[in-house]
């Protein structure tokens, strides 16, 4: 891995009394990076600072080696962006709009190629304000690829897309990264998708980075010894398994799952006790599996909160 | 396309303007034997003129002069050497259209054999104003022809491409 594509040092941003970013430090290496956090965590604020759309109160940020405050034009020449809920001028035809945007960049794929990439070639002559939400999103994705960018920021890229389009979108990200070396900075709530494509992730909450690192490393770190028990009634199961020996922790996840923590050496014993408890309470247990997804990791990180410095 | 639309708008506006009625201009004065009274006005196209006097039995002559001849008449003090565009002699009243050859400044000059005659002149433009109507209609026609040709050319091109494709 080479130099960082995004480098953030001590970034702070206030909107009146609200602290949107609080001394954020972040290094994003080339590859596919996932930026994860709840609503209002500061993801979009950081993206806007990285694009030079707003200025931080403190700290500095660099994208592809360019300072966001002084070299924003150089950054925008080299990156592609899909904003969350993108807004395009309404009355323009799709192909005309994409053609004009392509002309902003020196070297770019043609408008027709970009539309083909996202499967929108048949909508080329439709007006932008007559597109469905999914089509609108796909136009935004196509435009993010205009100018052969080295880095693409995608804010909620798969919202409004159907399953097939999502898969195609994720495949496109992986393919572009592999073949063209394009790096991606993806902000999304759909963690299963990020887990599928990202090399590295960072978790942010209330303007502070809680954790960052390679996806599998973080999953391993935060979900070791955690298992998901799928049952017919999670509430009653949780009540029934309280007090089981060697069960370090248990918490409900939805109506049918309970997440338990136990050491590996005691796992079989704990599972047997859980099954017995469930049986006596007439609760069906469908299976026990490691709770080691990115979503599980995110929940654990959020539960633990920021590390003490 | 856009230029064509703009030219079309000019054409339509010209056509609308050509039908807009104008206000009536009032002139006149006192004329006596051996002299004249005149009213100068600006005219873009044909005008409707009404001339009457305070004595309906007195005869007068009415002449239309262009600006040059009006000046000449003024310098000479009489209408001897002037060229008239229109002349109506020995009349007691006039009401009708006077043709204007080109837009400019004209004068209606009136002479009489009566001792004194008080003259009222009313002038108004005739609608439609042919100049504007022709200009507007011409622009619309040009746009229609050009657009028509464009459609024909595009269709024949599309046809040729289709045939090559087959």
């Amino acid at each position, binding site marked *: 891995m080479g130099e960082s594509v995004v480098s953030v040092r001590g970034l702070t941003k206030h909107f009146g009394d609200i602290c949107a970013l609080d001394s954020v430090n972040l290094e994003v290496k080339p590859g596919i990076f996932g930026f994860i956090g709840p609503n209002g965590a500061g993801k979009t604020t950081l993206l*806007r600072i990285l*694009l030079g*759309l*707003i200025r931080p109160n403190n700290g500095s940020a660099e994208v592809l080696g360019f300072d966001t405050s002084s070299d924003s*034009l150089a950054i925008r*020449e080299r990156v592609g962006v899909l*904003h969350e809920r993108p*807004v*395009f*001028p309404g*009355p*323009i035809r799709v192909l005309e*709009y994409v053609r*004009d*945007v392509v*002309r*902003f*960049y*020196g070297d770019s794929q043609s408008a027709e190629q970009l539309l083909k990439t996202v499967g929108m070639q048949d909508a080329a002559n439709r007006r932008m304000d007559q597109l469905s939400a999914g089509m609108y999103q796909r136009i935004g994705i196509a435009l993010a690829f205009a100018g052969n960018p080295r880095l693409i920021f995608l804010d909620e890229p798969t919202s409004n897309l159907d399953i097939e389009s999502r898969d195609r979108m994720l495949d496109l990200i992986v393919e572009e990264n592999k073949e063209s070396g394009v790096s991606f900075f993806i902000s999304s709530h759909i963690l299963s998708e990020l887990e599928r494509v990202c090399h590295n992730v960072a978790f942010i909450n209330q303007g502070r980075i809680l954790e960052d690192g390679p996806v599998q490393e973080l999953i391993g770190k935060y979900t070791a010894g955690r298992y998901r028990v799928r049952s017919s009634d999670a509430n009653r199961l949780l009540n029934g398994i309280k007090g089981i020996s060697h069960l370090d922790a248990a918490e409900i996840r939805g109506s049918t799952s309970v997440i338990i923590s136990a050491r590996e050496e005691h796992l079989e014993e704990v599972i047997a006790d859980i099954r017995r408890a469930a049986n006596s309470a007439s609760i069906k247990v469908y299976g026990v599996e490691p709770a080691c997804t990115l979503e599980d990791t995110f929940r654990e990180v959020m539960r633990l909160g920021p590390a003490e410095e | 396309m*856009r230029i064509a*639309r*703009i030219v079309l*708008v*000019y054409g*339509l*506006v010209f056509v609308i*303007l050509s039908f*807009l009625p*104008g*206000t*009536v*201009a*009032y*002139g006149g*004065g*006192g*004329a006596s034997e051996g*002299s004249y*009274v*005149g*009213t*100068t*006005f*600006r*005219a*873009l196209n044909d*005008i409707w003129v009404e001339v009457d006097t305070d004595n309906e039995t007195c005869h007068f002559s009415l002449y239309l002069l262009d600006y040059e001849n*009006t000046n000449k008449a*003024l310098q000479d*003090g009489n209408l001897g050497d002037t060229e008239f565009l229109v002349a109506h002699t020995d009349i007691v009243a006039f009401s009708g259209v006077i043709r204007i050859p080109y*837009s400019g*400044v004209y*004068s209606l000059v009136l002479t009489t054999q009566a001792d004194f005659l008080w003259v009222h*002149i009313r*002038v*108004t*433009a005739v609608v439609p*104003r042919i*100049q*504007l109507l022709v200009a507007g209609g011409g622009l619309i026609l040009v746009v229609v022809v050009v657009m028509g040709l464009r459609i024909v050319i595009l269709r024949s091109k599309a046809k040729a491409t289709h045939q090559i494709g087959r």
Partner: protein
Amino acid sequence: MVQQKSRTRAFLSLEIKSFYRFPIVECFVGVFTLLAFLNVLSVGSVTDFDVESPENLAGFLQSAASALLYLSVFPFMYLLVLLVPVLVSLVIAKPFEDGTIRTILTHPIKRSFLLLTKILITVVLPGTAATVALLLAIQFGFGIQPSVSQVALLVGSIWVFILSVASVTTLLSVISKKAATSATGGVVLWYSMVLLADLYGFPETARHVINPLSAALAYVLGGDGAPLLADVLVGLLGALSMAFVFIVVSIALFERSEI
């Protein structure tokens, strides 16, 4: 350089397609042409003369041409005062409201270039429509030729007037970022300034700076109380300077705006 040219053309194309689509420009053209012709097509004023008073004719040509110019251009002033603030608000403040400004600034475009180009279009389009309308009216509706210097003065005043009204609304748009606020503010502010300028004792020069078109029209029409040419030129220069200052401040604020 080539890249900048391509960007400029792309941006102009986007602006025209986004904000000046059919029939906006066509309406400008139609309305300005109608206004320019409306008051000059009638026979209008006449002058009577007889043997005793031949001099009446002498002044006719000069005064008629000036009056026609006045009648042709005067209605522009009230149209421009409404049209320009609405137009500037539509192209500068509205993109803040609907979010398209963020989309466009995601692409490699300098903010100063973006704002200047937007102002330029809002000045050039109505300015050109008004100028062409006036020239057409002179050609097809006057019947007499006014002096070139008077026409040039009025055309210059129209452009400076548009620029000054546009610059005020640009500043309001950048500050408020709301289309309705800046459009209303632009109109109300200008009318307030004109009313203020009409107060007794208000400096004549300031009045000409606030409304250079009115000063130029008064000069062209002539008569008692008409300003001197030098006063009109000072007014034009003052209005240009004021517009320049407003635009520079607008750019400075826009550079710091949070998008």
